[in-house]
C-alpha cells in the first residue's frame, strides 16, 4: 500500500493511457513485428502445436504401415523418413518450444514483472524456430526428409549415398532451434533471477520459476555439446573431415557421446517444465499451498544435476567396459529419487487439502498414472543387463512414450485447460475436456502398453515391417487402433481450443481462484501488470487482501510510462530488493530480419550456395549490430527514475549488476560448453588410438604458443582499455582498443599459421581435422572479438559510451575473459599435448 496521496480517477486514467500507448501491439502487417511476451508466447505455442500435429500425423502413418505384417502402405524409405521426422519434430519442434512458449507467456506476470528483460531476443528466438521448423518439416514433401533416425548415427548418416540431403536439412534445420533455445535460456535465467517483483524473495518464488531456472541452466550445458557435434558432423559431410570415419582415425562413438550428453538432459528439459505446471495447478485445486516447497526445489536441482550423469545408458550395448556402464546405471537409478519425490509432493498436497474436480486435475492425475509406469520401466532399463535385452526394441518405444506423454503431454494439456482463461477470459469446455481425456488416456494405453510385450518378444525399433506369425501381429494391430483413439482425443482438444467462443460468456478474473500472481493479468491489456506489486507471500492473491485492487489502481511501482518507454524493475537475486528501472526493447523489425537472414545462412549452407551464405551472413551481422546499437546501453536523458512509493532508481547500470552483463556471461557459459565438447573430442581420439596423431605432423610448439601469447596481450590491452575508460581518457581508450584489435589479428594469424605451415590436411586423418577445428573455433571467436572491439570504438567515437556509461566495454571485456581462457587452452593443448603424452 502507498502512503502518497491518492490519485484522482482522471490521473489514473492518464497513467493507463500512457501505459496502453507504450505497450500497444501494432496492427496490420506490423502486428508481426511485436515483441510483447504475450504475443510471442501465443505464436510460439501455436507454432509448436502445429508442429506436434504434423508429427502426430506422421506417427499415424507409421502405425498404419505397422498394423499388419508385410504391409506396403508406405515404402521402406518413406517409412524411414516418417519415423525420423516424427521423432525429430516432436523433440525439437514441439517438446522444447512449447515450454519456451509457456514460460515466455506466463513468467513475467507470474513474477510480477511487465516483461522479460530481452523481448527482442525472444522474438528472434521465435522467428528462428518457426523458420527452422518449416524448413525441416517441409522437406518430407520433397522426399528429402532426414531418414536415419532422430539421433542420426554415423556412419549411416554421414554416408552421402544413403542419407542424401535429408541429413544436412536435419543438421542445419536444428541449428535454428539450438539458437532459439540458447536465447530462451538467457532470457529465462536473467528474468527469473533479476526481474521479480520486489519482496518476492528466493523462498517465495513460484515453483514454476524454480523449475524453469534449473531447466534454463540445463539447456545451457546440454545444447552446446550437440552444437559441437553438429559442427563436426556437417564438416564431415560438407568437406570430408573424418571425425566419425574409422578408416581415417575417426570414431562413430564420439557422435554418440556428444549426442547423448545433449539427449539425456534434453528429456528432463522436456519433463521438468511440464511437471512445473502441475506444481502450479495442484495447489489451486487442493485449495491450499503446496506441501513440500523445498522438496520440489530439491527435486528440480537434483534432477538437473543427476540427469547429466546418465547419457551412456543410451550406449549400454556399444561394447564399452562394464565398469563405465555401471557408473551410468547407478546415476540412472539415483535420478529416480528426485523424480519420485515430486510425485509424492503432489499427492501429499492433495491429501492435506480438499481436492475439487476440474479438467486440469483430471489430465494431471491421468498423466501421473501414465508417467509412473514409464518411470518404473525406466528403473528396469536403467539396469544394464535388462537394457542388453530391451535396448533398441519396442520396449524402449513404450517406455519413452509413457514418460513423455504421461510426464509432458498430459500436464501440458492440463496447463492449456488451466491457463486458457488468461488468453481469452473464458474457460474451455468441461464436457469436451472430459471426453478428450478419456479418449486420450484409453487410446494411449491401448496403443503403447502392448509395445512392452512386443519389444521383449523380439520386435526391434525402426522396422518398416515385420514377418507374419512371429507373434507380433496382434500387438501391432491393437497399437494402431489405440493410436487412432488417442488421436481422436487430441483432435477434440484442438477443436475445443479453436472453436469460436464469442457467444460464450466471459469469466470473471481468476476463475479457478488460484493464489499466484499470473492470475492478475488481464487478457485485453498488453502491459503485463498495471503496477509492479510488493509481494509478501507465496500465494499473494490468497494472502494479501486487496492486492489485486491495489495493483489495478496503480498504487505500487511504475504505475505510468512518463518517458514513453517500456519499463520493468530489476531486483536483487536473493531478496528481490529494487535495484534498477530497466527499459526493455519494444516493437522492432530487426529481430525478424536477423532471424530470417541467419536462417538464410543455414538454408544456403544446406544447398552449398556459398555466395548466398556470405551475403546472408553480412545482413545478419548488420541487423544484429543495428539491434545492439539502437536498443542496448542507451544513455538515458535523466540518470534516475522515480518509480513510485518514494523510490528513485537508476536507469543505466553496467558491470556485473547489469542484465546485459548477465546475458553475456550466460551466453559465454553455453559457448564455453560447446568449446569444451570440442576439446573433449580431441582427448577422446587420444584415448582410442595408440598414436592418435596417426603419424601426421602437428602444429608444432612455436606458432601455438605465439598465438596464446598474442591473445593474452590483446586481453591485457582490453583490461587496460576498460580501466582507462573509467579514468575518463577517451583518446587513450580508443588507442588501446585499436592496439588490442591489431594484436588479435596477429594472434589469429599465428593460430592459423601453426597447422597451415605444418601442412596439416584435415581430409586425410582425424588428427589434422580436430586440430583445425579447434584452431578455427578459436580464431573465429577472435574475429568476433574484433567486431566487438570495433563496436566499442565506434560507440566511444559516437559519444554513446563514456566514463559513466561503459556497459558496452564491460560486456566486451567479459567476453574477452572467456576468449583468453579459450585461446590459452586451445593453443596450450594443441602445442603442448603431443609433446607431453
Amino acid at each position: 500500500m502507498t502512503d502518497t496521496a491518492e490519485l484522482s480517477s482522471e490521473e489514473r486514467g492518464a497513467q493507463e493511457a500512457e501505459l496502453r500507448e507504450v505497450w500497444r501491439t501494432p496492427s496490420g502487417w506490423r502486428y508481426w513485428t511485436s515483441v510483447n511476451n504475450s504475443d510471442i508466447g501465443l505464436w510460439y505455442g501455436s507454432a509448436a502445436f502445429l508442429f506436434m500435429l504434423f508429427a502426430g500425423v506422421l506417427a499415424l502413418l507409421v502405425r498404419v504401415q505397422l498394423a499388419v505384417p508385410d504391409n506396403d502402405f508406405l515404402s521402406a524409405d518413406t517409412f524411414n523418413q516418417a519415423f525420423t521426422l516424427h521423432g525429430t519434430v516432436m523433440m525439437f519442434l514441439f517438446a522444447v518450444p512449447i515450454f519456451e512458449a509457456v514460460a515466455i507467456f506466463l513468467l513475467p506476470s507470474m513474477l510480477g514483472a511487465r516483461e522479460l528483460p530481452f523481448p527482442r531476443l525472444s522474438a528472434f528466438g521465435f522467428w528462428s524456430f518457426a523458420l527452422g521448423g518449416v524448413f525441416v518439416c517441409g522437406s518430407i514433401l520433397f522426399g528429402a526428409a532426414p531418414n536415419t533416425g532422430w539421433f542420426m548415427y554415423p556412419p549411416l548418416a554421414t554416408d552421402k549415398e544413403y542419407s542424401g540431403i535429408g541429413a544436412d536439412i536435419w543438421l542445419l534445420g536444428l541449428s535454428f532451434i539450438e539458437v532459439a533455445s540458447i536465447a530462451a535460456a538467457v532470457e529465462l535465467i536473467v528474468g527469473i533471477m533479476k526481474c521479480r517483483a520486489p519482496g518476492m524473495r528466493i523462498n517465495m518464488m513460484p515453483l514454476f520459476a524454480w523449475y524453469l531456472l534449473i531447466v534454463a541452466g540445463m539447456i545451457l550445458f546440454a545444447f552446446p555439446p550437440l552444437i559441437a557435434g553438429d559442427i563436426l558432423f556437417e564438416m564431415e559431410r560438407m568437406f570430408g573431415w573424418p571425425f566419425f570415419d574409422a578408416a581415417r582415425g575417426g570414431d562413430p562413438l564420439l557422435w554418440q557421446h556428444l549426442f547423448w550428453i545433449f539427449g539425456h538432459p534434453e528429456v528432463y528439459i522436456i519433463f521438468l517444465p511440464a511437471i512445473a505446471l502441475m506444481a502450479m495447478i495442484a495447489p489451486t485445486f487442493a485449495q491450499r499451498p503446496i506441501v513440500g516447497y523445498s522438496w520440489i526445489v530439491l527435486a528440480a536441482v537434483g534432477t538437473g544435476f543427476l540427469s547429466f550423469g546418465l547419457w551412456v545408458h543410451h550406449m549400454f550395448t556399444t561394447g564399452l567396459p562394464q565398469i563405465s556402464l555401471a557408473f551410468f546405471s547407478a546415476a540412472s537409478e539415483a535420478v529416480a529419487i528426485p523424480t519420485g519425490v515430486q510425485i509424492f509432493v503432489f499427492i501429499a498436497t492433495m491429501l492435506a487439502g480438499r481436492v475439487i474436480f476440474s479438467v486440469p486435475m483430471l489430465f494431471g492425475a491421468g498423466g501421473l498414472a501414465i508417467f509412473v509406469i514409464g518411470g518404473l520401466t525406466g528403473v528396469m532399463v536403467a539396469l544394464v543387463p535388462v537394457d542388453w535385452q530391451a535396448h533398441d526394441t519396442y520396449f524402449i518405444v513404450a517406455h519413452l512414450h509413457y514418460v513423455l506423454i504421461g510426464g509432458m503431454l498430459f500436464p501440458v494439456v492440463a496447463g492449456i485447460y488451466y491457463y486458457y482463461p488468461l488468453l481469452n477470459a473464458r474457460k474451455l469446455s468441461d464436457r469436451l475436456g472430459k471426453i478428450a481425456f478419456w479418449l486420450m488416456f484409453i487410446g494411449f494405453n491401448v496403443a503403447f502398453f502392448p509395445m512392452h510385450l512386443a519389444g521383449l518378444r523380439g520386435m526391434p525399433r525402426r522396422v518398416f515391417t515385420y514377418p507374419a506369425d512371429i507373434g507380433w501381429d496382434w500387438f501391432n494391430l491393437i497399437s494402431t487402433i489405440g493410436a487412432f483413439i488417442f488421436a481422436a482425443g487430441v483432435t477434440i482438444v484442438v477443436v475445443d481450443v479453436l472453436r469460436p467462443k464469442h457467444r460464450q460468456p466471459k469469466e470473471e478474473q481468476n476463475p479457478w481462484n488460484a493464489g499466484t500472481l499470473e492470475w492478475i493479468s488481464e487478457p485485453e491489456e498488453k502491459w503485463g501488470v498495471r503496477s509492479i506489486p510488493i509481494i509478501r507471500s507465496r500465494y499473494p492473491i490468497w494472502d494479501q487482501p486487496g492486492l489485486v485492487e491495489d495493483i489495478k489502481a496503480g498504487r505500487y511501482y511504475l504505475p505510468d510510462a512518463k518517458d514513453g518507454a517500456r519499463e520493468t524493475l530489476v531486483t536483487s537475486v536473493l531478496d528481490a530488493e529494487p535495484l534498477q528501472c530497466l527499459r526493455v526493447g519494444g516493437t522492432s523489425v530487426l529481430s525478424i530480419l536477423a532471424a530470417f537472414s541467419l536462417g538464410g545462412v543455414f538454408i544456403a549452407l544446406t544447398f552449398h550456395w556459398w555466395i548466398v551464405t556470405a551475403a546472408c551472413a553480412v545482413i545478419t551481422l548488420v541487423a544484429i549490430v543495428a539491434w545492439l546499437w539502437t536498443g542496448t546501453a542507451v544513455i538515458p536523458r535523466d540518470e534516475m527514475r522515480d518509480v513510485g512509493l518514494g523510490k528513485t532508481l537508476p536507469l543505466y547500470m553496467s558491470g556485473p549488476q547489469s542484465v546485459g552483463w548477465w546475458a553475456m556471461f550466460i551466453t559465454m557459459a553455453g559457448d564455453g560448453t560447446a568449446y569444451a565438447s570440442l576439446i573433449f573430442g580431441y582427448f577422446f581420439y587420444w584415448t582410442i588410438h595408440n598414436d592418435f596423431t596417426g603419424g601426421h605432423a602437428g602444429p608444432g610448439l612455436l606458432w601455438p604458443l605465439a598465438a596464446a601469447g598474442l591473445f593474452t596481450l590483446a586481453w591485457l590491452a582490453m583490461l587496460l582499455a576498460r580501466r582507462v575508460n573509467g579514468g575518463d581518457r577517451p583518446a587513450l581508450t580508443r588507442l588501446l582498443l585499436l592496439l588490442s584489435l591489431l594484436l588479435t589479428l596477429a594472434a589469429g594469424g599465428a593460430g592459423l599459421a601453426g597447422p597451415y605451415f605444418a601442412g596439416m590436411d584435415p581430409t586425410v586423418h582425424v588428427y589434422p581435422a580436430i586440430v583445425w577445428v579447434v584452431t578455427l573455433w578459436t580464431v573465429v571467436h577472435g574475429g568476433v572479438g574484433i567486431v566487438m572491439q570495433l563496436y566499442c570504438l565506434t560507440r566511444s567515437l559516437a559519444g554513446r559510451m563514456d566514463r559513466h556509461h561503459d556497459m558496452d566495454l564491460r560486456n566486451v571485456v567479459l567476453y574477452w575473459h572467456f576468449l583468453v581462457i579459450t585461446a590459452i587452452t586451445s593453443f596450450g593443448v594443441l602445442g603442448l599435448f603431443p609433446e607431453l603424452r
Partner: protein
Amino acid sequence: MRLIPKEIESLWTLFTAPTIWALHFLACYITAAIHCAKADAAASLGTTRLVLGIITVAALTGIALSAYLAWRQWGFGSGDPPHDEPTRRDRLLFQGFATLLLSGLSFVAVLFVAVPLVFIGACQP
C-alpha cells in the same frame, strides 16, 4: 566456526553438494575409461579402484561437511518448513533446508555411483 559465515548471501551454495557429486562422477568415469582404453579388455582395474575409493570417501566427507553447514544455516532444525514468511530469516532458513536436502540426495547418489567399484574389478566389456 566463523570461517564460513552462517548467513549465506549467495545462491551458489545451494549447488555445493550436487557439484561434489558431479566431480566425483567425472573422476570415476574418466579415470576408469582412460585406464581401460589404454589397457586391454582382460586388464584388471587394480589400483584404480583403490584410488577411486579414496576419492569416494573424500566426496562423501565434502558432502557431509556441506550438510553440516546447511543444517547450521537451517538453525539446526529449530524451525519447521514451510519457510514462507516474507523475512530474511525465513529466506535463510529455506536456503539451509534446501541445501540440506540436496546434501542428502548427493550423499546417496555418490554411494550409488561407488557401487560398481565394489563388484567390477576388470575392464571387460
